[in-house]
């Protein structure tokens, strides 16, 4: 197992380096001279040239890339042009906010999705089953930013019971207040994933329930609860783990939109504002951090998968 994890980690290195090249190239292909953006339109030709030289912009691209990568590996993501602050420092608090949001949404999606799928499968063709499947269809089709706005209209304005913006009420801190603010954003982000996980759990359960060993378990007189939760569920959940893993990308991408709707102070909100301000060091750092988190989470899911399914041996 340890050697499998190690091999997978090593295999990630070329992918991650490729990702850094892609991020670097994207930002360098972008129109607009960073030196000009920093100094403003009134800058003289000499001061522009001096700044370009100081920033290393007069070097060939490969040299610039190697220099940049060396800094990134030391945790130096450059300085924000707009906010005049260290990018790594800017990202540090943002990562916590985005991580909290995606983690909460992921847990909610897995818990609610699996539970809904199990009940739907156990009571196939019941009203609950049909209701769950309709909800799954709706939940998957509704754009995440629209759902967020609908929940805002409903629970923030029409029946004002939940906070609709930010992480904390003014003058308040502490976990209770934070979790209270987290409810609507997390629910919004989770809904699409709940839909897919519920569908997958249901169809996987239905497949497993028809297997011989389930019939055997029932025939030897085990309680239905034991059959469903001990015998069927454990095997049915294996393909569900794959679907849960696929949701990681959806959650990290969707988080950008949800942060915008609920003014959640995460990486996504920072990134969008940086793009509009053409603050490239921030964009570069934010994209790289999210991609790194994504690649590592995918690895984690694969490891979990191999732990859950003893038939898989590496």
């Amino acid at each position: 197992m340890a050697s499998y994890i190690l091999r997978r980690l090593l295999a990630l290195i070329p992918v991650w380096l490729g990702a850094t090249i892609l991020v670097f190239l994207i930002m360098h292909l972008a129109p607009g001279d960073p030196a000009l953006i920093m100094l403003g339109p009134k800058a003289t030709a000499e001061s522009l040239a001096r700044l370009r030289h100081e920033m290393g912009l007069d070097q060939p691209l490969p040299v610039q890339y190697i220099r940049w990568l060396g800094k990134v590996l030391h945790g130096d993501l450059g300085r924000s042009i707009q906010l005049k602050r260290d990018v790594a420092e800017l990202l540090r608090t943002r990562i916590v906010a985005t991580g909290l949001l995606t983690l909460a949404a992921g847990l909610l999606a897995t818990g609610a999705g699996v539970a809904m799928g199990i009940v739907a499968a156990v009571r196939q063709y019941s009203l609950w089953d049909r209701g769950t499947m309709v909800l799954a269809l709706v939940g998957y089709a509704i754009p995440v930013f629209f759902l967020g706005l609908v929940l805002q209209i409903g629970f923030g304005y029409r029946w004002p019971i939940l906070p609709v913006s930010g992480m904390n009420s003014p003058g308040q801190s502490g976990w209770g207040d934070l979790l209270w603010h987290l409810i609507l954003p997390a629910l919004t982000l989770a809904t699409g994933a709940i839909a897919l996980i519920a569908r997958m759990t249901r169809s996987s359960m239905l497949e497993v329930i028809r297997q011989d060993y389930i019939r055997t378990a029932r025939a030897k007189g085990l309680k239905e609860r034991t059959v469903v939760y001990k015998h069927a569920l454990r095997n049915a959940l294996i393909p569900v783990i794959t679907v849960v893993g696929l949701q990681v990308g959806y959650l990290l991408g969707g988080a950008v939109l949800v942060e915008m709707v609920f003014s959640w102070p995460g990486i996504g909100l920072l990134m969008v504002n940086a793009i509009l301000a053409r603050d490239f060091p921030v964009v570069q750092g934010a994209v790289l951090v999210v991609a790194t988190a994504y690649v590592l989470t995918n690895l984690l899911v694969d490891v979990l998968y191999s732990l859950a399914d003893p038939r898989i041996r590496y």
Partner: protein
Amino acid sequence: MERNDGEVRKPLKILFRDPWAVAALGFLGLVLFIAAVGPWLAPESPIDSNLADRLQPVGTPGHLLGTDELGRDVLSRLLYGARPSVGVGFAAVAVAMAVGVPLGLAAGYFGSWVDSLLSRTTDVFLAFPYVLLAIAVIAALGPGFYHAMLAVAIAGIPYYIRIARGSALALRHRDFVEASKSAGASHLRILWSHMLPNALSPLLVAATLDVGWMITAAAGLSFLGLGAQPPMAEWGVMLSDGRQFVRVAPHLTLVPGIAIFVVVLALNILGDALRDVLDPRLAGRR
């Protein structure tokens, strides 16, 4: 190609027995009709403002769906907006397929270094969540409607490379491919007349679901201010504009949002039905 012909026609018959799929298909036909002729159906200009009539609610005489913060008729903006908002999904899928499918087929068919090179490159692109990749492309190109379309398409290319490569890998040692090779057919001919037709089923299913996905993604970019820009009548822009008046005029948010939702819903229903008849093994992608 007789073999392939039957493979497509029979599933279509089954598809037409599914009332949901037929309803979805009919609705999408209507949407495409509106996208084509919307500007002629619209009662008013989508961009001329009329401040005297601003923020009228749904059902106001003369303004069936009300008016927005500049007094523009919401129904007119909705009808004008159908073309860019829905068209962007079809155009982006077409671009993603046009680039991704040939590359994927070539990777699977030729194997060796072609496959290694393309697969490793694809892996790098897939190290970014879909929406993040689209946003990164926008960061390079700058905001705008056509840039958003291109970004959404580029972010979709790796998925089509994957699917087409998988099909080509499964096909390349089949008898009819080997036979064609020994008969002296060129690589291009084999790819075009054997690989492509036989890889179409999973591609068609993915494309149908992706049109909806890309419509949502493009509208999302507009919502973030990175896609189509005001005053353009586009559903994502309408949502983003309406958001500032969500307390006093929720219809400005609800109308375009529901429009995106039902179009995507219809595409998903159709895509699911297509998958059930064409390729049951594909369940649960993305």
